[in-house]
């Protein structure tokens, strides 16, 4: 076979050719290669190998704390219930994007089976299997549904995710006794706060952005004031204002719990940033799109919903993902006002003299958790972008 792009040498000895071309083509290149090999050797022997010899008991002993904080043990099934709910809709969402289960589902399956075989309590091991079953089961159920109905179910499912989780995890008496928010902690708390801020900052930010573009002077100035005020203050300051000053400013007994104060601080902060990002996106839409819609007699509201927002949101996926990941990570700041989220709980674990030597392990574990979460968000966004990009390309 004669390939015009390849020299005869390359066709005969592809590996040798590649090594020569990329690693040893010049003296400088050779030196660089040797130096990089040395660095890799150092990395492997000094950093990676010790990881395997680390004592991980600190994680094993505190796994429950890291994941759910002081959430009462006998109520942990409620957290699992939320996971089941999420797993069910994850399965459906996967089916929506493609016909065969994606690799990530098999990967998840293997991880779940691995956990189910670990030495946890029976409830947790059973729950892992249940999640696995729901994930693949809902994938199968979804294949029986019509695409339009499926998309509706998925959208409502995800919108109701947070109300469902808050309802179940907080409880309201009866079979679900109330678990106070000060008992929530660890990954559970981090996820609840960050997901809430992600879900709420988008609509609130949108309202602020639209308000800022409004022709009504009062609406406009209120929105500008809110955005600039919140953006001009560090998140830590907002959290401290909520934590320290709000209870003093409000009549006794009026102040909501620390959790609610911290949550609303984080949500407000991200809404302000989201508002400015969305405003940028809105400005990117040509005036002619509004004119075309107006000439078809579409009202401003319908123009926004059907013409402008779909274009804006599609263009803004990278920006939105950026905000989402930073929202996810910024929640770690709530540990500063004494909330025991992932970071807060680990600080308290490490400060226990028993686990003095375990701080590296705890940090490493947390870092990995955050990385997995953020990486999956950005992966999901790539899939979404491709999915939307294949069929529609936006052209001015």
């Amino acid at each position, binding site marked *: 076979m004669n390939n015009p792009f390849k020299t005869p040498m390359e066709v005969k000895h592809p590996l040798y050719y590649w090594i020569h071309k990329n690693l040893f083509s010049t003296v400088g290149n050779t030196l660089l290669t040797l130096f990089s090999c040395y660095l890799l050797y150092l990395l492997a022997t000094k950093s990676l190998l010790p990881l395997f010899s680390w004592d991980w008991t600190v994680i094993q002993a505190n796994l429950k704390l890291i994941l759910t904080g002081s959430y009462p043990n006998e109520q942990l099934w409620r957290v699992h219930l939320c996971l089941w709910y999420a797993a069910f809709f994850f399965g459906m969402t996967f089916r929506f994007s493609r016909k065969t289960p994606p690799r990530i589902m098999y990967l998840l399956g293997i991880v779940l089976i691995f956990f189910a075989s670990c030495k946890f309590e029976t409830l947790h091991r059973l729950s892992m299997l249940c999640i696995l079953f729901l994930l693949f089961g809902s994938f199968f159920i979804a294949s029986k549904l019509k695409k339009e109905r499926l998309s509706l179910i998925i959208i409502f499912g995800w919108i109701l995710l947070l109300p469902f989780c808050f309802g179940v995890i907080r409880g309201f008496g009866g079979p679900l006794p109330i678990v106070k928010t000060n008992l929530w902690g660890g990954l559970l708390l981090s996820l609840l706060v960050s997901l809430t801020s992600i879900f709420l900052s988008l609509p609130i930010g949108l309202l602020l952005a639209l308000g800022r573009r409004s022709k009504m002077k009062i609406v406009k100035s209120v929105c500008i004031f809110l955005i600039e005020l919140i953006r001009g203050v560090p998140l830590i300051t907002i959290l401290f204002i909520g934590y320290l000053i709000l209870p003093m400013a409000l009549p006794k007994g009026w102040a909501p719990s620390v959790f609610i104060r911290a949550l609303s601080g984080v949500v407000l902060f991200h809404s302000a940033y989201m508002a400015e990002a969305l405003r940028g996106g809105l400005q990117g839409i040509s005036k002619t799109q509004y*004119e*075309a819609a*107006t000439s*078809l007699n*579409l009202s401003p509201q319908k123009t926004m919903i059907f*013409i402008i927002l779909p274009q804006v949101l599609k263009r803004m996926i990278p920006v939105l993902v950026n905000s989402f990941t930073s929202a996810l990570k910024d929640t770690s700041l709530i540990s500063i006002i004494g909330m025991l989220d992932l970071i807060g709980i680990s600080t308290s674990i490490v400060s226990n003299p028993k686990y003095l030597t375990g701080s590296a392990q705890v940090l490493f574990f947390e870092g990995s958790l955050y990385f997995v979460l953020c990486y999956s968000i950005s992966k999901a966004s790539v899939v979404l972008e491709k999915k939307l990009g294949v*069929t*529609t*390309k*936006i052209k001015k």
Partner: protein
Amino acid sequence: MEHTTTKKELIVFKDVHKWYTPEFEVLKGMNHTFYKGEVSVIIGPSGSGKSTFIRTINALEEYQQGEITVDGIPLDHNLKNINAIRSKIGMVFQQFNLFPHLTVLHNITLAPIWILKKSKEEAENQAMELLERVGVKAQALKYPNQLSGGEQQRVAIARSLAMNPEIMLFDEPTSALDPEMIKEVLDVMSELADNNMTLIVVTHELGFAKAVADHVLFFDGGKIVETAPPQEFFSAPKSDRTKLFLSQILSH
């Protein structure tokens, strides 16, 4: 002018003035009446207020002084009136302005479904008929940017027609097109004219004006300088400004 009594007045401009800024007056006292079923072509040098003029008709631009009525409805700040007027008028733009995130079919069905409250099926059937009429039926499921300029413009015409307008406004519909695509768009417009649609066209296509127009309006400096049937307009223009303009475009 003996037919005046039988013709129905559709759009009436009475001394319409528009300012962009207090110093910059674009329309300096427009007086004109468009009759039902007639094709009016507006020509003139750039900056003469042609586009602004037709954009005032469906309230894309406001005017500050004077009076416009469309089919008896006064065009004022009353939103109800504006909506009633817009529902009678379709508009086609120079840059097509299709919605890039929707397929050709959805571009057309969106407004009928949400404004005229048609069922999805009914709207789609109508859209397919219209696409056939303008000759782009085969592209119904494509996205606008996959179409040529001429096809996009014809889709834009179909999108306006889907709202069953009585009047169609064309704002330089062929100016952004490659020469070989101009004809296919003009053909669609001629077909509309043959079906007694009221058309108001801003264009530089003098051939179209000669062949299809009932009236040619010549604009200059925010005023209507001359109004005449095309034969008269092109063979025996009255004003010097018109003569100069025609000699400039017809010279090569």
